């Protein structure tokens, strides 16, 4: 492998204009596979969710999953695509052991959805329109495990083991038109596009789109052209970039690598490349010289799909509010800035906050907890917010306890800690840890009396009209009750006992 000395990002952008194409595969969350009735449930024993069809046994035939087509149409509509009135499946022929029939049933020149766009919002609020070339239906492959090599990688493996449970799970492939004009923001656009697409897919409810589970996978195609020229350069195709951050890094790396090659007089070869999470680099995969000839032809075992206008309109009626518009609405409802909304989005906190608000919490409180305490904790644990062992309903309950004066901020924080530690729900934690604010007159009165007795100088100042000095007495009460006192009530009692008006 030749190591190319990268040029700096700014230098690269000074001379070249990046052109990007993004291909995203989304695994649908249908109950059954695309062309057979096998379950798609995760975590099953190997080869226990296969049948003659998805195992490619001689004689077996495919039948299209209606929910797969519905999902494809809904994704197409949400991406502002035109929906084909008539389209066919096609066979993409190539041999690979993880593909039982040695052809992938896919779509070729007649995708079910085409010519759309997705508006994505960049960090500074700028909206960038990404044009969609097509969205088409296809099927996933089986899974191979490589045995005998040092690292479970393909190289050096003595043999491989194949599990076909995943073979035939529906995929929607979404391909952008060449993304031009993003300039130095190309990597950011790439990330924002994939993020927005993921939000959209989740909002549609067609997939959980969890990138870390391979339910959504992205290929980044990138080329550079000298600034001011029209013609696209030769592209590289970086395969299976499987997180938002990686999408950005891969695009950035390839810009720098292409620039280095081009400015030293070299040529880019069209090839697939692999992305490495550890250092953010890409390395050469298979060169495309041995040009794949997929010999596409219409799938004779399946009849054409011709979505009727009525059906398409019916499906259009099921579309949810688009994520970008919803965020806009929420931003206004919550009364926060665009920048703050962007942080909420980046933290994956939109849905938890909405659910918490729906459960009765004030928006600012819900946002405070999810973006503060909980975001910090998720970050520390390296998990998604929604993976924390606390629910929006529990956060809403804690907000309610604060509002009724049973908890203050500090106690609320301790309650959250207890819930996260698995000690039970908020009420249970408050009960077990004895976190309830001390507001009963007797106990509080004693603490107030003690505070006045222990700080005669201060008490005298207050009596003399220096009301702000009462804060020190409140502090003493809080200290004595280990923070569990209702501070406002304590202050009120101190003033009463010292005979001054609050």
């Amino acid at each position, binding site marked *: 492998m030749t190591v190319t000395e990268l040029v700096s990002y700014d230098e690269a952008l000074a001379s070249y204009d990046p052109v990007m194409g993004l291909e995203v595969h989304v695994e649908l969350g249908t109950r059954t596979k695309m062309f057979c009735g096998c379950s798609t449930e995760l975590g099953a024993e190997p080869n226990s969710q296969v049948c003659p069809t998805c195992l490619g046994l001689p004689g077996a035939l*495919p039948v299209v999953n209606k929910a797969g087509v519905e999902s494809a149409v809904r994704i197409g509509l949400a991406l502002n695509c035109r929906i084909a009135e008539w389209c066919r499946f096609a066979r993409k022929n190539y041999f690979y052991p993880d593909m039982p029939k040695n052809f992938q049933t896919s779509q070729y020149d007649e995708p079910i959805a085409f010519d759309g766009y997705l508006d994505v919002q960049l960090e500074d609020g700028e909206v960038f329109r990404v044009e969609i070339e097509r969205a088409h239906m296809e099927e996933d492959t089986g899974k191979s495990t490589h045995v005998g090599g040092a690292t479970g990688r393909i190289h050096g493996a003595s043999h491989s083991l194949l599990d076909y449970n995943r073979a035939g799970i529906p995929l929607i492939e979404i391909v952008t038109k060449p993304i031009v004009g993003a300039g130095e923001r190309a990597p950011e656009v790439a990330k924002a596009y994939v993020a927005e697409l993921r939000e959209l897919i989740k909002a549609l409810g067609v997939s959980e789109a969890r990138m870390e589970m391979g339910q959504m996978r992205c290929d980044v195609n990138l080329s550079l052209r000298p600034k001011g020229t029209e013609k696209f350069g030769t592209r590289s195709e970086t395969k299976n970039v499987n997180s938002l951050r990686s999408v950005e890094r891969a695009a950035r790396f390839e810009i720098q690598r292409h620039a280095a090659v081009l400015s030293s007089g070299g040529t880019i070869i069209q090839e697939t490349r692999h992305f490495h999470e550890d250092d953010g680099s890409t390395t050469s995969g298979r060169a495309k010289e041995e040009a794949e000839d997929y010999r596409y032809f219409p799938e004779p075992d399946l009849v054409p799909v011709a979505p009727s206008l009525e059906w398409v309109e019916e499906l259009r009626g099921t579309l949810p509010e688009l994520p970008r518009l919803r965020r806009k609405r929420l931003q206004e409802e919550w009364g926060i800035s665009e920048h703050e909304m962007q942080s909420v989005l980046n933290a994956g906190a939109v849905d938890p906050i909405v659910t918490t608000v729906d459960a009765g919490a004030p928006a600012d409180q819900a946002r405070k907890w999810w973006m503060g305490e909980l975001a910090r904790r998720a970050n520390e644990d390296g998990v998604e917010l929604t993976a924390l062992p606390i629910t929006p309903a529990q956060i809403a309950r804690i907000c309610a306890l604060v509002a009724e004066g049973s908890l203050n901020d500090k106690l609320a924080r301790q309650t959250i800690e207890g819930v996260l530690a698995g000690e039970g729900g908020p009420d249970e934690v408050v009960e077990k840890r004895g976190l309830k604010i001390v507001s009963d007159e007797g106990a509080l009165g004693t603490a107030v009396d003690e505070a006045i007795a222990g700080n005669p100088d201060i008490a005298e100042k207050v009596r003399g009209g220096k009301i702000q000095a009462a804060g020190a007495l409140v502090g003493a009460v809080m200290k004595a009750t280990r923070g569990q006192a209702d501070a406002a009530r304590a202050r009120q009692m101190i003033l009463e006992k010292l005979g001054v008006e609050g």
Partner: protein
Amino acid sequence: MAGELIKLTAAELAARIASGEVTAVEAAEAHLARIEAVDEKINAFLHVDREGALAQAREVDAKRERGEQLGPLAGVPLALKDLFTTEGVPTTAGSKILEGWIPPYDATVTKRLKDADVVVLGKTNMDEFAMGSSTENSAYGPTANPWDLTRIPGGSGGGSAASLAAHMAPLAIGTDTGGSIRQPAAVTGTVGVKPTYGGVSRYGMIAFSSSLDQGGPCARTVLDAALLHSVIAGHDEKDSTSIDQPVPDIVAAARNGTAQGMRVGVVKEFRGEGYQAGVMQRFDESVELLRELGAEIVELSCPSFTKALAAYYLIAPSECSSNLARFDAMRYGMRTGDDGTHSAEEVTALTREAGFGPEVKRRVMLGTYALSSGYYDAYYGSAQKVRTLITRDFAKAFEQVDVVVSPTTPTTAFPIGERVDDPMAMYLADLCTIPSNLAGNSAMSIPCGLAPEDGLPVGLQIIAPAMADDRLYRVGAALEAAFQARWGHPLLEEAPSL
């Protein structure tokens, strides 16, 4: 007794079983004994499932004793082409690459036969993956024609047709991609029907060319074919190309044969160079007979039929190159070269090289070529346009006539070995049958006499529109009755005894 049983038609045998005159076990044993006695000479069966057949026959007898209602073919033995999967029973498609493969599932046709209590005797020989017109492309040796053991029984379903002609079974199942039911029927003096495409489920029928393949009945009489046809036909949700409409009443049509008032088309493109004189003589006599039976004969021209063979030899190989890709030595079937020194890719190539015969390789490469980038439009794309033209020609013809007739094959059975290394000569055997596969309509072959010059059977093809399979049976039954009245006996009685 046994000798008599094997001569019965399926309808007669079923009636005797239903009445208790004969048991299903006796019927099965008589046919198994016949197979034992003569199949050494014919090689019609690749696998005889003696135990399975007898068990199934016993079940039929038990049902009868319990007083249960039996189907119209209950207890009748049948020979199943080895292209259909049979759970627990070896299925090879005539190929070495599937030697020893035991499917874990039944084809829909297999299932419907079992459900109808038809007794499956075994699996019949065929050209490898149904590619051929002579059964010489079987990896398990050729099948001989019972009329002359040095001649081919047709193909790809030579085993099924020969098993009928040699009285090893009264019924058989074939598949017809370009004539593989009709051409063997013609050269063995039996009846074969290619139903309308989509009329019989393809689920579990090992695919050769998906848009052309169609399973169908083989029998010794038109009525038997109709009875079998109605057992296997009908919508199947496992086959997306299956027609979701009622099957026309073909059994009633076969019982009420008539040509009276029928308009019968004779297509001028179905004659000329390459047609044997004796074949044309019997064909012309058949047309004359139809006229005598009250049919109106209409001369037609279907100009695009001259390109049918060319279109077929692009479409079928293209689809097969993809359909046969699954035979890669990874999940089932033969594996060669897995000695630790070869990669999966190499093992696949070594296995396919060793496991496929020359005709399969030829077609796989031809199809790979026709689909390659740069050639697709000129070859595969154009062939599909020809397909449109042929469909239009048929549509026009059927505006004028109810059925079209032609010779089934241009010649009678040719000698084994004669065309085996001359693909183009071999392909001509399907000249008259291919247009119906391309258009998807229905067609039948019935015996219409022996060619004077060689004394071998000649087949008459009857072609009907899609979903009008009943017309085949109506005309076929009328002709069959008229021929037998003329000959005084079924044609097969003139075959030499084995």
